[in-house]
């Protein structure tokens, strides 16, 4: 701010006056940095303004939005619960796949694997995390769903279902959870492990009984981060979870998620200021604060972990 009010008096560390060009460059760079903040402000502003339009239309109240059990814009039913429910359902299935696999793989990579094995496997897992989510959507629809149908029966499993979407999502976030958990386990001081070995513990007992509890806040951070990714994931659910909301806990039924609804509605040509247009912003608002909350919780865990060991 000083550069705005006191250009002539601007001085460097040696007490010399700064050159005009230097001040200008610094001003431009500061502007860039401020611009990045304005993105967040812009997102919050737009979500708030458009959601306000949605709720002031007179067709839906905030109470109905939260408590009503039906989301059917055609008959003016705007209860977010079915969409929210299937978002949680797909994310839960994803965590069921990625959570245990991710932690087990992290234990193996940090405690057991040779350096050579680790240096080969880690890049492979990174490849998995770098594949665009649209490819996972394709995979869920053309491979996982037929696979589930051949196991559980065509009548039990719908063509579009939340289970396939959840499993594909699990594969997507598995590398992230593995990598974050491994970092946490690597940061556990060696003295802790050696103390346990000294008492006669086996390697498994050290891993499960010492390393994992010591790294638990780092692992939790990875879980929450993974959950946040799953909640915001769009393309997999847009392709594999189905269109049309349904309030169900059956993972083999089709049920649209919050992100799936946003993608489907905005994919068609929507007119501005229609209920459809405004409704995606109201859902976007819920999505934004949900993921923001998860990200903040995850950062809290990371900070807690760092305070402990670093």
């Amino acid at each position, binding site marked *: 701010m000083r550069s705005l009010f006191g250009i002539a008096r601007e001085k460097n560390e040696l007490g010399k006056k700064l050159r005009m*060009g*230097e001040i200008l460059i*610094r001003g431009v*760079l*500061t502007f*860039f*940095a401020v611009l*990045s*903040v304005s*993105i*967040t402000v*812009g*997102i919050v502003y737009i*979500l708030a303004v458009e959601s306000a339009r949605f709720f002031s239309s007179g067709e839906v109240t905030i109470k109905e939005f939260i408590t009503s059990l039906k989301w059917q814009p055609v008959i003016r039913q705007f209860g977010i619960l079915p969409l929210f429910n299937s978002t949680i359902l797909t994310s839960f299935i994803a965590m069921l796949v990625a959570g*245990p696999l991710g932690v*087990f793989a992290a234990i*193996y*990579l940090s*405690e*057991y*694997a040779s350096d050579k094995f680790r240096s080969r*496997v880690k890049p*492979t897992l990174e*490849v*998995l995390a*770098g594949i*665009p*989510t*649209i*490819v996972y*959507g*394709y*995979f869920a629809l*053309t*491979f996982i769903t037929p696979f589930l149908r051949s196991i559980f029966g065509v009548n039990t499993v719908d063509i579009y279902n939340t289970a396939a979407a959840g499993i594909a999502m699990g*594969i997507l976030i*598995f590398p992230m959870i*593995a990598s974050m958990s491994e970092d946490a386990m690597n940061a556990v001081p060696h003295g802790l492990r050696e103390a346990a070995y000294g008492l006669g513990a*086996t390697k*498994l007992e050290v*891993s499960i009984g010492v390393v994992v509890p010591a790294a638990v806040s780092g692992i939790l951070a990875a879980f929450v*981060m993974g959950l*946040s990714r799953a909640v*915001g*994931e*769009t*393309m997999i659910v*847009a*392709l594999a979870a189905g269109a049309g909301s349904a309030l169900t806990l059956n993972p083999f039924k089709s049920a649209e998620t919050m*992100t799936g609804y*946003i*993608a489907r509605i*905005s*994919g068609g040509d929507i007119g501005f200021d229609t209920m459809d247009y405004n409704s995606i*912003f109201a859902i*976007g608002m819920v*999505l934004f604060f949900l*993921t*923001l909350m998860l*990200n903040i919780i995850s950062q809290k865990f990371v900070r807690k972990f760092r305070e402990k060991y670093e």
Partner: protein
Amino acid sequence: MISDITGRQKKNRTGILLFQAATLAGIFALIVLLYSVINESFGYVAIQDEHPIEEFGITSEKIEDLQRAQLIEILEQNISKGLIHRFEFEKPFSQRSTEEIFGIVLDKVVNPQVVRAWSLASSIFQREKIRDETRTEYPGARLEFRSWISFRFLFSAQSSIPEKTGIKTALIGSFFIIGIAIITAIPLGVGTAIYLEEYSKLNRFNNLIQVNIYNLAGIPSIIYGMLGLAVFVRGLEPLTSGLIFNAAQDSASNGRTILSAGLTLGILVLPIIIINAQEAIRGVPRSLRFSSFGIGATKWQTIWHHVLPYSMDRILTGSILAISRALGETAPLIVVGASTFVAKQPSSVFSKFTALPIQIYQWTARPQPEFRKVAAAAIIVLLILLLTLNAGAIILRNRYAKKKKRW
């Protein structure tokens, strides 16, 4: 429990197996995923001609044996006058070679259609069964081994017929969009990183910027799409549709243009570029800065001549990774308003757009199984592009690493 040593050792061994299995499950998933894509990209297809060439008394498909006049007569009898006029307008029949005319006859009159397509695995292991099925279910159809990914696929425009469609418009769209994203995001991102690492002092305001950037990186990409929809498509419509430059391509675009899509993806990758560039700049040794200050350089001279060149490899690697993220992004483009059908290739940043991942999405979402094959072929193209980008990043890093030894 403590005394039961054999039991504990047994548990220890099962533990190792379990952990190893979990790690390998990741690699297995990657293999299955690639398999499922490749499996759909190649395989036998049964092709049935709408009007087999023999119907017209042509028995040989050798060009030398064909009669020009006969071919033109077939065309005149079987396709509409309007279409003939269009061909005549493009290039008069008298100037076309026999080969060319035969091509038109094959395409428009004979009109071969894929009636059934098989996967690669069944094409290899169940060849006999496929032959039998074709013979009984599609009499008159011929069996051909087809690679759904081909040069023709790369260089033809979109079509509603799966075997004739291509990804040319989508590829051009993707390149345009990524270009705009790069132009906006890299200067902004690197500039912000320089500010945060070199200029900012530890205070609440700069801390806010830093925390904000980390949070931006965690926002779902679809939210960025909504920001783009509200700001670029709707709010800045006169700019993004090219109206204020008198360059609007089609009034139907309504701001749903390549420019809007590119800016949206630029904002999306900005936090990634900033974070990577910050790490790169942080890795520059302090001694380098001090020696530059020591010989009287100003702060910006130090940054421009020493800090940036030294950290350029990592900044570029980070930027390439950000670009490869943008290349695969689908959700924000859908929200910003990718067009469902773009047959004409985009001519400027104010054109309507489609992109490679959007094409994959639309083809996968179609019910016809043939479109799944096309989607698989497009996925392979996308994955090859991403692989090339990542390989480029690694080569770049190694090249600069050699140079760095001289510092």
